[in-house]
């Protein structure tokens, strides 16, 4: 029967403080840095998530900056003892608070108990059969998994479910939590951009003044303006066109560019273009760089 002892030796001596004896070269950094970055991102994320959950459970506020600083310092010091990096765990912290562990003593007790387990009771720990450990791990997995996310998978937006499934699949395939998180973050960013880059254009004809009003609704930026000019009709028999931007926001160069392009096209048909309802930030941007492209002869 395989036991915990077969996995490797349980060192029962206390570690000593020393600076790691590695060559301090760029090569070492190149090896360590990717892992360090991945560990930091995952560890920090989980710690902050844990802090938010514990804040909600105890109805208190925690200082997230202090939390990050503490974790960073502790992990650097741990490295000098030859230990592994660590972070707050959601499952354990929830159990801890549920059982009444509200103060600092509880985390100290957890550490001391682990030390006693290894140093004083090491002889017993190595005899634990792997089967028992596997059973515990399965129960931990069941307890940790957020089952309601499965129940809600058809209720939440499809993009959200996709992000979740892709993240989990990436973690399972690559065995690398950081890659999964990265894939999830990138995918959500893409979904966010595609969601936000829909501009709604409404047209209204004011017959008396031979004027047409286009109302734009949405965020105007590089990803959203590419087919904006196509949404206007340049062959209308009107004298003036008003572009109502009261429900829109101009974000960058490309937005101004697109508006200039539209203005140009209208002017080729001898139609005058006016803007209405610009919000202050957009107005500032338009004043700063608007008309530049026109002046340069596009």
């Amino acid at each position, binding site marked *: 029967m395989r036991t915990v002892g077969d996995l490797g030796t349980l060192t029962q001596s206390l570690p000593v403080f020393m600076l790691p004896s590695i060559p301090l070269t760029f090569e070492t950094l190149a090896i360590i840095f990717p892992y360090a970055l991945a560990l930091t991102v995952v560890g920090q994320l989980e710690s902050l998530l844990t802090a938010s*959950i514990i804040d909600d*459970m105890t109805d208190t506020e925690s200082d997230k900056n202090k939390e990050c600083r503490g974790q960073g310092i502790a992990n650097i010091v741990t490295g000098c003892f030859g230990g592994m990096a660590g972070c707050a765990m959601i499952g354990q912290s929830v159990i801890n608070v549920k059982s009444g562990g509200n103060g600092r003593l509880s985390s100290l007790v957890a550490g001391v108990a682990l030390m006693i387990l290894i140093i004083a009771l090491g002889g017993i720990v190595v005899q634990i059969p792997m089967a028992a450990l596997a059973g515990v791990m399965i129960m931990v997995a069941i307890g940790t998994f957020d089952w309601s996310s499965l129940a809600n998978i058809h209720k939440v937006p499809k993009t959200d479910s996709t992000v979740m499934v892709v993240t989990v699949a990436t973690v399972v395939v690559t065995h690398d939590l950081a890659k999964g998180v990265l894939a999830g973050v990138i995918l959500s960013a893409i979904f966010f951009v595609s969601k936000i880059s829909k501009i709604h254009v409404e047209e209204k004809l004011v017959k008396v003044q031979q004027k047409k009003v286009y109302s734009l609704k949405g965020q105007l930026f590089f990803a959203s303006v590419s087919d904006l000019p196509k949404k206007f009709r340049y062959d209308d028999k009107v004298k003036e066109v008003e572009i109502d931007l009261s429900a829109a926001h101009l974000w960058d160069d490309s937005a101004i560019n697109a508006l200039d392009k539209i203005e140009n096209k209208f002017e080729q048909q001898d139609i005058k273009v006016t803007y209405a309802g610009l919000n202050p930030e957009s107005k500032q941007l338009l004043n700063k760089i608007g008309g530049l492209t026109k002046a340069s002869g596009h």
Partner: protein
Amino acid sequence: MYQHVLIPADGSEHAYRAAKHAAGLLKAEGTIDVVYVIDGSKSKTDVLHTGNKELITKKRREKLKNIEELLNQQQISYHVHFLHGEPGPAIVKHANANNYDCIVMGSRGLNNLQSMVLGSVSHKVAKRANCPVMIVK
């Protein structure tokens, strides 16, 4: 007729029925306290699914919307409290600390698995609260 009544609510139909009865039991100038208990796993799923603190509070408040509407309709003055911890003990602690004349609660709430055995929260409250407890079926 009671002056100060506590309704533990969890957004379920049972809690709503309890609130109706509580309104009936109340003196003209009496007040009602509505408490909603958030336990550890609820905290976890709320934070994981919603993230934003203000949004979480809003969503929790929405769960009590039908009770609030009922009390507003009947022009009863009420306060809403959010408690954290295990539902049973948290309600008992709050009730015993605040001297209510009566607790009115549903026989069971949203948790179907536990209520198959018994309405565990109402059972605990009925056993340990120092004031009369009315359990509404």
